[in-house]
């Protein structure tokens, strides 16, 4: 509760949280189909209509309602971002804890493997995964998770390694606490703060990567709406129908901005060291 309070007292936290909440609402409405029009319904009479009372954000080349497509697009992008970050964070955290706990052999193997993954540019690695599995929603989730997992492993391993040698962990061991208990209660619980910040920032990257993959035609496949696909489709029509480009562009930027602001605020609040420098 105190975290929420602190978040709303922090200027960028307030703005970031508000943006993310609005997007979540739009995404939820997009998922359950609560959109002004059917996002896939084509209407040949109402092609390329500018924004109006009937079509708030205009229509596209096939007469589909841009506002409705935007809402399902946000829903799709958020779904992929949340799922991929959930996978990346959980797998990355477990690997980081394993590396820190067992040290030596497992640490060496795991961290060198992460070095290998980190030697790839993110979008290239994602492209390879998509090429192997074929484009689609689940592939995007896996590809993005695969790209960001090593970052979580690194974020968890460092603090876990130093926490492991602290006295309270020794004490817990002397009392006979089980390994599982020590790892989850004493290590993991103390890393929650940096992990939360990382999750928020990773959500921003995931949105960015998803939009990039879709833009290249490797993510969500048409006719399904996705912010990247909508932007890519707008390229040849931008002079005739600029709203086709402007709407998804603002939607992508806004979502990423929201998570970035939230991540910054969380870092300020949860890490006292940076509070002075960034305040």
């Amino acid at each position, binding site marked *: 509760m105190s975290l929420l309070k602190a978040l709303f007292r922090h200027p*960028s936290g307030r703005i970031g949280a508000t943006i993310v909440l609005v997007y979540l609402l739009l995404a939820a409405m997009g998922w359950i189909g609560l959109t002004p029009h059917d996002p896939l319904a084509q209407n040949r009479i109402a092609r390329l209509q500018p924004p109006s009372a009937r079509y708030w954000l205009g229509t596209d080349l096939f007469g589909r309602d841009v506002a409705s497509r935007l809402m399902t697009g946000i829903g799709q992008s958020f779904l992929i971002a949340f799922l991929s970050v959930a996978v990346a964070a959980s797998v990355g955290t477990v690997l980081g804890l394993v590396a820190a706990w067992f040290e030596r052999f497992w640490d060496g193997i795991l961290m*060198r*493997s992460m*070095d*290998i993954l980190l*030697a*790839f*540019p*993110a*979008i*290239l690695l994602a*492209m*390879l*995964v998509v*090429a*192997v599995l*074929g484009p689609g929603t689940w592939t995007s989730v896996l590809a993005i998770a695969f790209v960001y997992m090593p970052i979580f492993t690194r974020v968890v391993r460092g603090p876990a390694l130093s926490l492991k040698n602290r006295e309270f962990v020794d004490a817990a061991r002397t009392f006979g606490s089980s390994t599982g208990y020590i790892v989850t209660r004493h290590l993991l619980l103390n890393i929650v703060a940096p992990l939360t910040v990382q999750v928020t920032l990773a959500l*921003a990257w995931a949105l*960015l990567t998803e*939009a*990039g993959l879709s*833009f*290249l035609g490797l993510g969500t496949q048409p006719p399904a709406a996705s912010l990247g696909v909508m*932007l890519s489709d*707008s*390229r040849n029509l*931008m*002079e005739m129908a*600029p709203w086709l*480009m402007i709407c998804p*562009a603002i939607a*992508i*930027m806004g979502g*990423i*901005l929201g998570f*970035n*602001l939230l991540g*910054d605020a969380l870092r300020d609040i949860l890490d006292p060291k*940076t509070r*002075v*420098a*960034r305040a």
Partner: protein
Amino acid sequence: MNTLIRRLAAFPLVLLGVSSLVFVAIRLVPGDAITAMLGTQAGLLTPAQKAALAAYFGLDRPWIAQYWHWLRALLHGDLGISVTYGKPVLEVILQRFPLTLELALLSMAIALVIGVPAGVYAATHAERRSDLVLRIGAMIGQSTPSFVFGLVIIYVLSAGFGVLPAMGTFTPLLKDPLANLGQLILPALTLGAAFAAAVTRIARSAMLDVLSEDYVRTARSRGVPARGVIWRHALPNALIPVVTVSGIEFGYLLGGAVIVEQLFALPGLGRMVLDAILQRDYALVQGTVLFIAFNFMVVNLLVDLTYVWLDPRIRARG
């Protein structure tokens, strides 16, 4: 120095890991290389002819044998033959690389020229209105995907001024520097914008950290003019995180900026890899990814060396 030697020793190991990962991944892509190469003409070949082609490119042998053969050739500087281009892989890479390198350098120059002064200015005017404006600008810049920024540039140019950026062709730098710059400036601005935003943010927070340190206070109390304190005493130390961020970003850009290359129809490394993956050009994908990973690691190593150069404290410890 020890860490440096350890890093260098890990180099071949990581590259070996990268190469085997790519080797397996690209072979898991559905469909075979010969059919992908021939496209619609694949149907005209008899199975025997296809098998002969596969044998020519060494694709008929078990994976392990192919990998071993590829590794041995690699040690002799031979990256194999690209199935799509019918040329040595290294030649194809080196043909595309100058554009990618130039684009990366240009983007970094733009980012540093805008980002460092903006960050220093924001830090020395912390909590004032100008600082707030710069911070909001940097935050928005960092949240804007490169292709959104690129599309906006193209839109403003075409709708506002009726001009379209030169696309599709590429003039090498040495042949016609002006034409070359004209083709690269918009993509470089596109990539440089988000890059500059990241540099501004990191320069600001690093500068704020440094300005609160004792030696800066000492210099101030000794009567060193404010300008001297900022540029001579504080900035060199504040540059360390800036070098890290720019180095990582530059390293990524050397791998090709697929999306921006696609947007501006530039024949860079990024688009080549994308095409090679889609064409299942095994040798080309393997060679290029290895080349990219190698560059990325070299850049990271150079970043570490720059720390030592910028911060004498690290030098003493090493």
